[in-house]
């Protein structure tokens, strides 16, 4: 298993936002997390990516305990993520955004910048090549010099993925990739996610649109009120009585 969460919990005051959730992501798979609004999906993502400290429980990534790491440390180990409200560096160009994503792989520091060292120049060339490649992968090669704020909503979503992908992560967490874009654009995004997964990146996503999840995912976990209520293949989830009840109410 690439990622494992053991009885992971998060409390905000008296509220159990995530309640003893066991969760695994197999290497090479696409895993979905679904659930009604307020079920704790994004909080769960925040716990895994260490944006929030867990109240209790344990997380392992690639067999190593990462429960105590800081967000940037787990990112450097190969766990990348996007945010629900598409977050980018709005005033920077698309290329500069992606270059920021590559920075974790480079070593040049203050002195390199002040003396303009050879290492800095070498790393900048390497970073730009990687950034342009990644922009091409997400279909934004022609918009490298456009300011992020001047991109369409869909292009911004693609750029956010490029920012997460450029450092070649092993696991990519996507928080509602299809939110705020139309059906046709969603189809394009599904194709992109499939291409990313085919390229060897394990994907885990939160999604509201059922057809997206059912189409893309190998396995799905369902959260409700912070608890895991089901876990299985799309077919199993479709027929699970607990899931039907959570989504449709009591019969």
């Amino acid at each position, binding site marked *: 298993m690439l990622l494992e969460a053991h009885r992971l919990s998060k409390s905000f005051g008296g509220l159990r936002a995530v309640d003893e959730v066991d969760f695994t992501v197999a290497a090479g798979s696409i895993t979905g997390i679904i659930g009604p609004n307020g079920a704790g999906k994004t909080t769960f993502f925040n716990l895994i990516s260490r944006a929030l400290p867990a109240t209790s429980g344990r997380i392992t990534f690639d067999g190593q305990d990462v429960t105590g790491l800081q967000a*940037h440390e787990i990112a*450097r180990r190969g766990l990348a993520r996007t945010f629900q409200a598409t*977050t980018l*560096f709005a005033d920077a160009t698309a290329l500069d955004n992606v270059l*920021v994503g590559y*920075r*974790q792989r480079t070593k040049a520091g203050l002195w390199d*910048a002040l003396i303009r060292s050879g290492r800095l120049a070498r790393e900048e060339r390497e970073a730009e090549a990687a950034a342009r490649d990644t922009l091409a992968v997400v279909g934004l090669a022609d918009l490298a010099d456009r300011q992020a704020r001047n991109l369409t909503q869909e292009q911004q979503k693609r750029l956010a993925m490029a*920012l997460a992908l450029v450092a070649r992560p092993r696991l990519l967490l996507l928080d509602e990739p299809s939110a705020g874009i139309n059906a046709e654009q969603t189809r394009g995004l599904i194709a992109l996610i499939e291409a990313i997964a085919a390229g060897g990146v394990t994907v885990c996503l939160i999604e509201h649109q059922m057809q997206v999840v059912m189409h893309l995912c190998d396995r799905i976990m369902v959260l409700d009120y912070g608890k895991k209520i089901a876990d299985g293949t799309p077919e199993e989830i479709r027929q699970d009585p607990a899931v039907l009840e959570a989504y449709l109410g009591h019969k």
Partner: protein
Amino acid sequence: MTPRVTRAAPLAALAVALALPLVVPNEYYVQILTQGYVFAISACGLNVILGFAGQLSLAHAGFFGIGAYTVALLATKVGIAFWAGLPAGIALSAVFGFAIGSICLRSKGHYFAIFTLAVGLIIHLVIQKWESLTHGHIGVIGIPGPGAIGPLTFDSGIARSYLALAALVLTLVATSRLLRSPVGRTLMAVRESEPLAAAVGLDVMAAKRMAFTVSAALAGLAGGLYAGFIGFLGPEASNVEVTFNTLLYVMVGGIGSLSGPVAGTFIVYGLSQVLQVLQEYQMVIFGLALVLLILFMPSGLAGAFRRSSPQALKPSSPGRGK
């Protein structure tokens, strides 16, 4: 701005700066000019933490004071010459910056501003009250200025103004290299969104601490030059008022722009010299000017200049089809 203008503008500014000490009417103006360069270095330093990294530090005059007193006390008590004292002052400011930053930067936003305000005040009070070391209110007198380097002597006002200008140019080269490097891009990322910066693997704390240390080092450089040039140093050099003046220079010039703080320094500092007849009433004018500035030119002169330049007039998204 077109690339050609971008490249020519600093050279033109440098040419004007080189000619200025030779054409001003008397020594008094040369001294004002020198002071302006020194305060501009300090403003560039504040700009690194405030403009590049997005953290409002109000401890800046404290680091200016540490640099100034290091040079002054090493020279008068130990007999260490200016040229050895200055690097020591920069280094000590940087060490204090690193240590203080490690603690203060755990807080964010307004809390960080208040925290650093208190730290600046503490540094000022230590300088003022530690009479056995700093002579308190009496201050340090008879600080030797910069000695000759080979055939170059710095005894005349004009020579000192060129020395200050050289230090400012070095500061601008350093800050521009910093800004236009992966390190500068990291600071931009931290300033725009800490959660996103951390999610892409950037050590937010380390980046902010580096910016705070550089900022303190530049304040130390400015302070050291100040002590050597004036020859006298009192605790008011590290006063909170100095921090707010520096902040005003940066805001007028344009927070985050490279040369904005220099322009801001010369406009505000120059104006304050012209308005000296008004004594403390000049603060009424500056207060009003600041309010108007924030209302109508929130990104300072540099921002206003950028808006009126040709690039800003280009359509941001060329139409796709008719």
